[in-house]
């Protein structure tokens, strides 16, 4: 019963829409001008197969294509967000021997070379010792 009512609703809706003006031709033109080049860009990146060239009638849309497609190409080609880590693992030389965890400066604090050195310095200076514990290395990017 519910299914029949649903079919009836679809029929009535379709009939109502059929009485309205037909979809404007401009939508079709937009589909050809904007969406087809996007599909081509994605397709060219994912498949080595050459796609059929755009019909000659698109020549008039060349300006619009040029204005729109670079952004799409950039979006697909540069999928990695700007603040993300590099996709490729840096070489050992590039990361100062730290693998893919590059060396960074551990802030502006003048750290002693270990807790024992800090304690020895504290005995001379009379200052307290500050020991900062962490998971990872303070002088590496990922800590």
């Amino acid at each position, binding site marked *: 019963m519910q299914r029949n009512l649903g079919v009836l609703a679809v029929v009535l809706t379709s009939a109502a829409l059929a009485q309205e003006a037909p979809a404007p031709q401009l939508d079709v033109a937009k589909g050809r001008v904007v969406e087809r080049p996007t599909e081509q860009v994605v397709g060219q990146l994912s498949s080595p197969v050459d796609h059929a060239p755009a019909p000659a009638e698109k020549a008039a849309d060349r300006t619009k294509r040029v204005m729109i497609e670079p952004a799409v190409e950039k979006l697909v080609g540069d999928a990695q967000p700007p603040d993300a880590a590099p*996709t490729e693992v840096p070489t050992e030389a590039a990361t100062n021997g730290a693998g893919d965890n590059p060396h960074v400066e551990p*802030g502006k*604090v003048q*750290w002693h070379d270990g807790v024992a050195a800090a*304690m020895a310095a504290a005995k001379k200076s009379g200052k*307290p*010792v500050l020991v900062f*514990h962490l*998971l*990872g290395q303070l002088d590496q990017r990922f800590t």
Partner: protein
Amino acid sequence: MFSDDQVAALINEKFEPAWQSLRPVPRVTIDFGNGAVVKRTLHGNVATYVCNSDGTVLDILPGIYEPKTYARELLGLARLFGRSKRGSVGADAFWRNYHRSQAESFAAASNPAASTPTFRGMSIFGTERPTRRAIRGEQPPTSAAGTSLTDSLAEDTRMNETTRRLKIHLRLAKSDDVTPDAINKWLYREVLGTDLDDPYLGLKEMLFKNYPFVEEDADD
């Protein structure tokens, strides 16, 4: 914190600083398969111990702090250290009395029920919070603007200075001659919610509880 000019200047002037790694930090890498790769750290808990020259722990600042609060607390501890050396009572008794009085005032000023940590006291760098929320299946805050790094840091600082610090005062009020190495497992497990003896740092149940391929992965 250590890139902040005020914090760095204070530490350089008032302390003899050293840092120590407890273990490698766990890292999460998500390869989206289309060239996009995101790398984040997980469970990056930290702790700042203030010790005397023999390495005895005088006080602990747990977790990551807003620079202004971190500097204020460190300055206060540096001044207390000076007073402890000049006082009429011994240094041990001075610090025990300090922790006892701090614990009493913390307990009186805070409402434990209202300040119970949402994440079992975990303290991690603000940038990791979204990853942690995603892994734990928790919803992000409902504020219209979302939670910024500043908001997360403020939340961590508030947690540090309420429930976490209270636990430390209660512990140190009853202890003498505690070194960082002797107390760090307790600190990470009981205060920061990270079990250093667990290879999964306490996250195993959450990671595998509803994962259907545990046995298959174990065979690999």
